[in-house]
């Protein structure tokens, strides 16, 4: 846990005093990622760097796991905080192994233990230890270097990490990959992380919480979803952009919005039965056909059911797409648009049908500013 208490930094410049951070108070719960977000010069980096005293606070206090850090020796404090910077800052004179084990060696671990730790870290960041440990940073690509940068920060297993635009210098494709890898690692590691970014999409993706800064002040501090749903003022609103409702699509999983109730037919049902069910459920266009393993295999349209006689197995059409329970709504919306569908079946890991998701349900979810756990009854009327 990181708690900032009225943390303030005033820089003396030739033009007079500049307040870079103005009484910042906030708390990052244990195991969460908090993204500090804002335009350049807003004080987010200053705030981050006051935590490990790269910048000395003018006033205010920093607590880590409820311990007031002002009593700690600077070196000792820093060795217990993982630190990743945008310029990566690997030591070019040291091998990858020496870089990763820099903090453990400062802490006086014995050689056997830190060498083993280096191999563990390489496994964690999915790089081959034998191929890389003896090489030098200049021999690695930017993406590989920043993975090593993260490994170095994590090597001594600090409870807290500070990351200053860590993925900012990496090309967009590699950045997305590294972000995903990092989030996956974080699921196991559960570090308490402060993360500076100027990229709203990165903040939404990485942050459990997002803190918006402006001119040295903390403007809004909330979860990404709350932030996008209810920006506190015009500045936050404009900073998030006019497509902020669409950005929320990234944050919501299918399982939160889908309706579990879905009418289905089997291949052995007659088309009459199908039409009956379509009417019973109030579907407008079609009904899903599932096989004996509960997997959606096709759909029967209302037009065919009304005009034709016979069995479903002979008259079904393919389903253009199905979505997984853990897909985000952005993917769902994209599939709906590209396939001209207003609904999609939802499946689990075994591709068994679990329910359906409708356009109406999505717009309803995004429109409700205060999310209540409602899988609304209204959705079903408009479904299939």
């Amino acid at each position, binding site marked *: 846990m990181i708690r900032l208490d009225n943390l303030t930094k005033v820089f003396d410049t030739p033009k007079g005093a500049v307040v870079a951070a103005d009484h910042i108070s906030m708390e990052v719960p244990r195991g969460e990622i908090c993204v500090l977000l804002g335009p350049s010069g807003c004080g987010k980096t200053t705030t981050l760097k006051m935590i*490990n005293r790269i910048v000395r606070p003018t006033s205010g206090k920093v607590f880590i796991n409820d311990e007031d850090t002002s009593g700690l020796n600077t070196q000792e404090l820093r060795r217990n905080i993982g630190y990743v910077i945008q310029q990566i*800052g690997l030591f*070019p004179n*040291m*091998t990858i192994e020496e870089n990763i084990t820099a*903090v453990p060696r400062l802490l006086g671990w014995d050689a056997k233990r830190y060498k083993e730790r280096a191999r563990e870290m390489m496994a964690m960041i999915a790089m081959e230890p034998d191929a890389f440990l003896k090489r*030098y940073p200049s021999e690695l690509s930017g993406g590989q270097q920043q993975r090593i940068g993260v490994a170095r920060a994590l090597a001594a297993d600090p409870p807290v990490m*500070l990351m200053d635009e860590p993925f900012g210098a990496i090309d967009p494709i590699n950045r997305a990959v590294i972000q995903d890898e990092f989030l996956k690692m974080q699921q196991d590691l559960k570090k308490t992380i402060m993360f500076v970014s100027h990229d709203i999409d990165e903040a939404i993706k990485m942050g459990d919480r997002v803190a918006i800064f402006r001119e040295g002040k903390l403007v809004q501090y909330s979860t990404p979803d709350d932030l996008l749903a209810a920006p506190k003022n015009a500045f936050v609103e404009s900073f998030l952009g006019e497509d902020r409702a669409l950005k929320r699509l990234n944050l919501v999983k299918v399982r939160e919005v889908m309706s579990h109730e879905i009418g289905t037919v089997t291949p052995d049902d007659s088309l009459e039965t199908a039409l009956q069910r379509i009417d019973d459920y109030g579907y407008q266009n079609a009904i899903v056909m599932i096989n004996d393993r509960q997997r959606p295999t096709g759909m029967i349209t209302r037009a065919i059911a009304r005009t034709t006689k016979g069995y479903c197995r002979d008259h079904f059409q393919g389903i253009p797409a199905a979505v997984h329970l853990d897909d985000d709504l952005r993917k769902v919306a994209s599939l709906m648009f590209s396939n001209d569908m207003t609904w999609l079946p939802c499946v689990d890991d075994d591709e068994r049908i679990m329910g359906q998701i409708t356009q109406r349900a999505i717009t309803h979810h995004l429109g409700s500013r205060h999310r209540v756990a409602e899988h609304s009854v209204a959705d079903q009327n408009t479904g299939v």
Partner: protein
Amino acid sequence: MPIQSMQGALRALILVVVFFIGVWSQSSGLVDDFMFYLPDVQYLVVQHLWLTAVSGSLAIGVAVPLGIILSRRSMAKVAESLMQVLNVGTTIPTLAVLALSMSFLGIGTVPAIFGLFVATLLPIARNTYAGLKGVSPALMEAAAGIGMSPTQRLFRVELPNALYVIFAGIRTALAINVGTVPLAFLIGAGGLGELIFTGIDLYDPIMMLSGAIPTALLAITVDALIATIAFIVVPRGVNPSRA
């Protein structure tokens, strides 16, 4: 390949020419003329190297710590102006430095070593300072951020990363040093200058060359020696010659 055979022919030609020069110099008695000075050369080379070794190691011993101190952040205000003073100092001709040190310290080895020391000091101090200042701020922030103390930062990050530039300074300085030692003869410190200047005075080119050629060879050898040490000592990751 035609180019390879061209090179081969050229090489063969050079060998033949060198061979005939050898034959000619042997038959004309030139080799014997030079060999006459061999005992002098042997004695003077040792003296020459001794002057270089003493003044050079003194200079390294003072200049590197000086460069380190000047590059500390607390010295930032004085450092730049002091470096300017050192730069101006470099422009003073070595002969003038020797003459000055002679007028204070008299004649002999001590003023010569002092003069050589001053001439060698400046390039090393300048490169040490520049090398340490050139270490990227991001690296320094990373080093501080992971909890290195200022001393650990200096020895584990700053010096290893500046070492290549520091060695370049030492190389230049010692090459200058070896080339300057002959002047030390003028204030009575010996060295190969004895053959060179006496040869000039007596209008004896053989004697002069007996001093000049070993001096040139020594300068090249010392330079190569320092280059080799740098190649081994500077860590591979920051050593352009090992990239």
